[in-house]
């Protein structure tokens, strides 16, 4: 359970840092009036949906941290046979990088009010993401073709489960992206889409980061890292 604990420490640190700015030492019974310290007056207000996305990402992060915890615990059992390296995963990962890059481009397009470029960039991001999903499916297909099916080893089971859950999150993101694309066709003013676009981009980069961690885990590099951590802990 060390990876989820580590994750919680990170979340806890962010939470503590935020709380430390909330005047928790204030003595509200002595303070009347609206003077000072209420949110948003002096600092630039962050849209609620951004905060919402941030917290959602924490939830998704917890989910994957727990999966990784489970993975590393199960890995220690004697029947674990690691999945052979899937070189295909490299180009597939590249597709997700491209998708995120396209969203960065979309952000720029939204800022410069270039509606046509914005549309193109968003569609490109969606297509790259779909290609990524297809690539993942292909990797799984190949595994089953060489006889590494879901059930014959826990390493395979995790491989399928992790890729599947990550893919589901991409799919969810695609729904949001689809809505944004739909909105580009209904408005003439790219300014109104800036928030949606940047939310999509944040989500994409987060899923990319998660994927890189999972990738490291599945190909076994993380194993060495985990081993070191375990040594440090004991």
């Amino acid at each position, binding site marked *: 359970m060390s990876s989820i604990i580590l994750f919680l420490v990170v979340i806890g640190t962010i939470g503590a840092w935020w709380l430390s700015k*909330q005047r928790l*030492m204030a003595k509200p*019974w002595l303070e009347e009036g*609206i003077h000072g310290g*209420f949110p948003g007056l002096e600092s630039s207000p*962050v849209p609620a949906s951004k*905060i919402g996305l941030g917290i959602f990402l924490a939830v998704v992060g917890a989910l994957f941290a727990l999966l990784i915890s489970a993975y590393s*615990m*199960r890995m220690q059992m004697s029947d674990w046979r690691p999945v052979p390296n899937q070189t295909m995963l490299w180009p597939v990962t590249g597709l997700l990088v491209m998708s995120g890059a396209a969203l960065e481009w979309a952000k720029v397009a939204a800022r410069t009010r270039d509606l046509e470029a914005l549309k193109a960039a968003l569609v490109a991001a969606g297509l790259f993401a779909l290609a990524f999903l297809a690539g993942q499916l292909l990797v799984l297909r190949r595994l089953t073709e060489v006889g590494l099916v879901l059930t014959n080893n826990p390493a395979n089971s995790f491989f399928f489960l992790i890729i599947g859950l990550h893919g589901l999150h991409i799919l969810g993101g695609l729904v949001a992206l689809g809505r944004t694309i739909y909105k580009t066709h209904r408005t003439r003013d790219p300014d109104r889409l800036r928030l949606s676009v940047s939310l999509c981009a944040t989500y994409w980069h987060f899923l990319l980061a998660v994927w890189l961690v999972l990738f490291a885990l599945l190909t076994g590099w993380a194993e060495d890292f985990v081993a070191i951590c375990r040594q440090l802990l004991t």
Partner: protein
Amino acid sequence: MVDVPLDTFGGLPPPEVPDVDLYHPKSWVTKYVFSQDAKVIAIQYSATAMSIGLLALVLSWLMRLQLGFPSIFSFIDATAYYQFVTMHGMMMVVYVLTALFLGGFGNYLIPLMVGARDMVFPYANMLSYWLYLLAVVILLASFFVPGGPTGAGWTLYPPQAILSGTPGRDWGIMLMLISLIIFIIGFTMGGLNYVVTVLQARARGMTLMRMPLTVWGIFTASFMALLAFPALLVGAVMMLFDRLLGTSFFMPSLVEMGEHLSYGGGSPILFQHLFWFFGHPEVYIVALPAFGIVSDLISVHARKNIFGYRMMVWAILAIGALSFVVWAHHMYVSGMNPYFGFFFATSTLIIAVPTAIKIYNWVLTLWRGNIRLTLPMLFALAFIVTFINGGLTGLFLGNVVVDVPLSDTMFVVAHFHMVMGVAPVLAIFGAIYHWYPKVTGRMLDETLGRIHFWITFLGAYLIFFPMHYLGLMGVPRRYHEMGEMAFVPQSAQTLNAFITVMALIVGTAQMVFFFNVVWSYFKGKPAGHNPWEAASLEWQTPETPPPHGNWGRELPVVYRWAYDYSVPGAASDFVPQNQPVASRPASDEDR
């Protein structure tokens, strides 16, 4: 999309909202069924959760009938008993208490108490309820599938949960897992709303340290739930894989009826870790809102500010953080490294410190207060007593050496029913008696309420107190029948019969409450805007019950914390949060 206009609010809601920006329901259906108004969603959540609560109550009756009068009711065989235990436990913990505190009270109170018009993402909020309802329907469906609901115990431990010896192995367990997965997805949508509304939609002047403790409790609990439920989700998904697709995440190699199953190598302990990583915070997800609510009830009905407000807030936060590092105290008997046992025992006992602080502060709030023994106050007092009671036995169980012999006896059943069964339910009743006037504009009937209170409070003790004793005698939990247990004297059976009779009486007495809720809705005494003379914001709405948008054209401005009662020199014995600071005669200080 409806959540767009609120997005544009940014961190600080403007004082006035142009009419067009408010989401307006267009028909009866969007107003009362697929509603995006947090208040309607709150009622929907509460009504659903309470119906499930009644069902879970009936299940507990059936169990009690079997325990009190064994082998009289032929339809309660061992299989049915396990199914009842499981469904009762899971329903009560997840589908009743969590849904009621967060989905019910959270939705109703957060926007009103922080001075917002609604939740920040109303559409997701609506989806949250409908997913919850879907989860409930799927859960109930398991009563009607072949083999019936799962009988694995609410902890759903593998491997037995999906082996053929366990009731509901074919369909029940799958429906349970699917229902939980849907519940968690739905909750996440709601939870994001509760948290972000507190963060981003507070009225001007409402600093965090001016929020009522109810909001602090629900806020912290929601945040915890957001981080804890994923563990249950991962566990449920993996178990579903094991059951449906034949993976071996949790399943060791097994021989069943002389046949070697295809499972192998899996780790049941892994599931226990995941389950309790969710399960322990869950206890506080239920307790923290109750703490917050009780703090507010006590303060209002004792006409005193809450003692040590800051400490109360810190304690809530500390409990929230600590409760994530104690989960393995549920696994003392799973054969863990003694050093881990020591660590978890210590962290468990440390949680007692902030909890004790809260209790002292409640008592000090009451101290020399102008206590009005209203119904909410009675329930709040009963909550404190009960919580102390359950907390003390918790200290016993938190110690490894004491827990090992008591584990899996009725003592444990008595303990957790006190802390997380009876106590939260008392807080819920108190809260309903307190806020019902705001929700409906009418008071609940006092006499009926008092009858309800005394039967429930005393009855709960008559039910659960003797169970401690049974547990010390060694009567095991989750046993359908005691059979030939030489160490259990005959008198235990008499006691069991007594408990059962009390459970029937207490359960039936709840009808008084439901009758009261319905009757008062039509015939209750009109309540006015602020019958309790409370200072917090939800009592200051221009209309009661608050209409869509809560505040009319102009959002409130907050000038003080929520606890200005009996302020020396003030005109009345409470000062509402949104009352502008009195213009004092100009003094030197002001110049």
